[in-house]
């Protein structure tokens, strides 16, 4: 029953997107500017578990067959279009699943490459080849035009819809966490500017609104806002805005408005330009969102690594230091504030460290550090008393090693220091 519901919903969405694609078809060239429907089938295949694939493909088959019938194709031809949809979308989804781990999280550039080159492009080409062959078999005119229109419109449509489906399928309502309110508000401003600027540029004949070449020149402006939006809202926001923005551009251009409609050096030039523009919007938004997410993942990984390291050395009452004898600078890692009452940032030099050593032992410890510099004691262990956070006496066991460069010269001295309490404080 659930499978049937999925199939019916897919078919309905397929038909709805097909209807939108019809609306934005470019009238002067009488051609599809964008074919959005395949994107929903492909996107859902990449979002849902394999157990749902049959239902999704069945929905796509029914949707494609029904739409072809509505366009006037005879039943057998219509079924052929349905079969093409199943083969192209299913094959592309299978290829992507081989190239990257599903579900696609849009956190690695590799995922984006797999989606575009392993999925969207093969989907468009496979569909175009099969459709062209079908046309040839049916003795339809201009098979090469069919191939070109199919490839371009499917590729762009898939890139506009599939990432949006994948990204939003992972949306979960949360009590807290995720995007902060300031980021949402800033992204909302960028979104309004992006869509508003597109509307301003494309919702009127350019010459009426902007004089000279100002209109076509200003087409770069929405790109800037898309970049901001992708940084602030991530993949979900970027894909949704790119979809809506592309529709604004295409609908207005199909109606003879906007900077591209006025340029018609050859039949369909405006259509090609608008397709390129929509593709640029979609790809740029995706690319920036993915690169930004990759940065966040890298930062998160580093933070998790640091948390594990801090927990491990903290549990053992350890501090780690790196001392550069050339400058005297020391970098201390670990909770020295808890152990010694001094924050790591305040232990910036060897003198700061030696100040913690009990007075009677300070000279001895300083001498041993000097010996380390002179290369005596490659692997050196030193025990000395230090002042604890509460002023009590603690024992530091300092195990140092020398790090040398490729030429054998001393580069740094690194050490692990165990801070042990006295028995009375244990």
């Amino acid at each position: 029953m659930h499978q049937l519901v999925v199939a019916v919903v897919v078919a309905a969405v397929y038909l709805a997107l097909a209807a939108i694609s019809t609306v934005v078809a470019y009238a002067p060239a009488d051609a599809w500017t964008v074919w959005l429907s395949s994107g929903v089938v492909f996107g859902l295949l990449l979002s849902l578990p394999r157990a749902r694939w049959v239902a999704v493909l069945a929905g796509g088959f029914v949707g494609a067959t029904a739409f072809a019938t509505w366009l006037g194709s005879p039943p057998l031809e219509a079924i052929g279009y349905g079969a093409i949809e199943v083969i192209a979308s299913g094959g592309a989804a299978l290829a992507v699943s081989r190239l990257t781990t599903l579900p696609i999280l849009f956190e690695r550039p590799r995922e984006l490459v797999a989606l575009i080159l392993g999925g969207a492009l093969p989907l468009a080409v496979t569909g175009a080849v099969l459709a062209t062959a079908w046309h040839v078999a049916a003795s339809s005119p201009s098979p090469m035009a069919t191939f070109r229109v199919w490839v371009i419109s499917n590729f762009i449509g898939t890139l506009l819809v599939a990432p949006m489906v994948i990204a939003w399928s992972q949306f979960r309502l949360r009590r807290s966490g995720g995007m902060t309110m300031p980021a949402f508000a800033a992204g909302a401003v960028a979104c309004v500017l992006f869509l508003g600027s597109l509307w301003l540029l494309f919702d009127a004949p350019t010459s009426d609104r902007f004089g000279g070449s100002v209109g076509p020149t200003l087409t770069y402006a929405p790109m800037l806002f898309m970049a901001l939006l992708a940084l602030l809202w991530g993949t979900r926001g970027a894909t949704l805005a790119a979809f809506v923005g592309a529709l604004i551009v295409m609908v207005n251009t199909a109606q003879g408005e906007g900077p591209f409609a006025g340029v018609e050096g050859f039949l369909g030039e405006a259509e090609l330009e608008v397709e390129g523009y929509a593709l640029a919007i979609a790809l740029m938004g995706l690319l920036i969102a993915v690169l930004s997410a990759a940065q966040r993942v890298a930062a998160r990984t580093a933070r998790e690594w640091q948390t594990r390291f801090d927990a491990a050395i903290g549990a053992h009452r350890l501090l780690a230091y790196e001392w550069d004898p050339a400058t005297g600078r020391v970098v201390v890692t670990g909770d020295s504030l808890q152990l010694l009452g001094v924050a790591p940032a305040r232990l910036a030099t060897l003198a700061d460290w030696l100040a913690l050593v009990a007075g009677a032992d300070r000279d001895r410890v300083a001498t041993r550090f000097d010996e380390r510099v002179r290369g005596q004691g490659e692997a050196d262990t030193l025990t000395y008393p230090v002042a604890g956070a509460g002023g009590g006496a603690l024992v530091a066991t300092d195990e140092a090693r020398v790090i040398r460069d490729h030429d054998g010269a001393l580069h740094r001295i690194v050490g692990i220091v165990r801070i042990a309490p006295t028995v009375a404080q244990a």
Partner: protein
Amino acid sequence: MTGDVVAESMAPPAAPATEPAPAAPDGVFLIHGLGGTQYDLGSMHKRLKNAGFVTHSLTLPGHGTRPEDLAGVSAEDWIEAVVTKYREVRGLHPRLHLMGMCMGSLLAAVLAQRERHAQGNLVLLAPPVYIDGWATPWYRGLRPLLYPVPGIGRTMKIEEEDPFGIKNEQLRAIVKAKFERGENFHYRWVPLECIRQVDRLRAILMKNAKHIGCQTLVIHAREDELTSLRSANFLVEQIGGGRARMVVLEDSYHMICVDNDREIVAKNVLEFFGAAMPGATSALANEPKMTPDALAAAVTATTEKLAAGDFTGLRDLAIPDLAWVQPGINRMSGAHSGKTFASFASRITQGHAPRFAGFGTPVFNRGVALVPATLVAQRDGATLQSQGALLLAFHGGKLLEARWFADEVEREDAFFGEPEAEAPGTVSLDAAFDAAALASKTLKKAPDNDTLLALYSLFKQASVGDVGGERPGALDMVNRAKHDAWSQRKAMGRDDAMKAYVDLVAQLKEGEGQ
């Protein structure tokens, strides 16, 4: 829904009474948050118990099982549950304080208002009067639009997400791991309907907050990601500055009882409840809540123990966190409280036969008594007779803290010897014991009954001491066997019990490896 209420008490069961016994300790009623358990309140149970309070808690309707069970539970069910529990326990204590965390604080506030609570104070921890924290999602304001949609309230899940209300990265990693392991300490999600009920509860409190009549403390983190300081400000304004005050935390998110500022939370709560804490003698400001006769009797009982050299027995007269401050720079010096007091009592007793003698007339100042005395100890044929004074602090009939002031502390330093540095790489017995206790919970296969009884008896002997209380009846076979096993360890020293426990756990772990 009343039938679904799962109520539990951390105190021994007692018949409800309208007039509490004069010596009954104060109680605290703690209420957890939405989707949570007592874990929300961190170590507050323990801290309060150690300070001499009896704590009561309950598992709210729909909690402690599966998130799905929250669907169908209304705000009224939660209110009824806390009111029922409150009426059940309020007669047991001269003073009963209320304390809630997150949604539990909303319930505690509504309870205080409805029951005209005046028997104690009210503590509200991170009350979410407004859901407007910095990490609340952008669509939070849209939720009222979804409430009327049939079916969606039960099926739509609102998930818990990083940062889980915790600023401390290490603690957050622990909580994340607990979620990944599926531990039932907090629901991973709650139904949307549940959020609706919280919204209703918020509305009830916002309407009635001004009628709360008891002394109230609101503790709130400035960086609370779920609810901003506006919530705390609202409550303080409504209740009134004369009755309500606020503590703002600077280094925590929402889960303030487990995050970086948990110690500040505990300290403020204990102070607000009038609990005298170990180390508070310097203030000399504690209200002992004891009659002069009771105070004198407590001093007598304490000096009798000390005269007999029964340091371990002092724990019978004290709060669990009893602190003993021994002066000087020697093997016995330092502030020994809680678990380390047991270690100190064991060390000073072994080989020194210490006792106090020559007690003078005590001088009282509120809950503090200053008693002239002489510390007598023996070691390797040498005898120490060190004169000085004992400062004993009491609260609610219990000894909180004892400080020994020696007239000539150098003599004690010479007698007990210099403090020993712990050898690098060695682990203290306490640490080894704690590690063994943890390791015992990770045994792949449950040991046989005899081994389990051995583990239990050694653990109790090491952590509590000699067995107390009556032997359970013949029908209570399990507890009787445990009691008997523990009895067999009677008079076994704490360190010996710890070592035996550590060895037994190590032996069991080794057995698993073979």
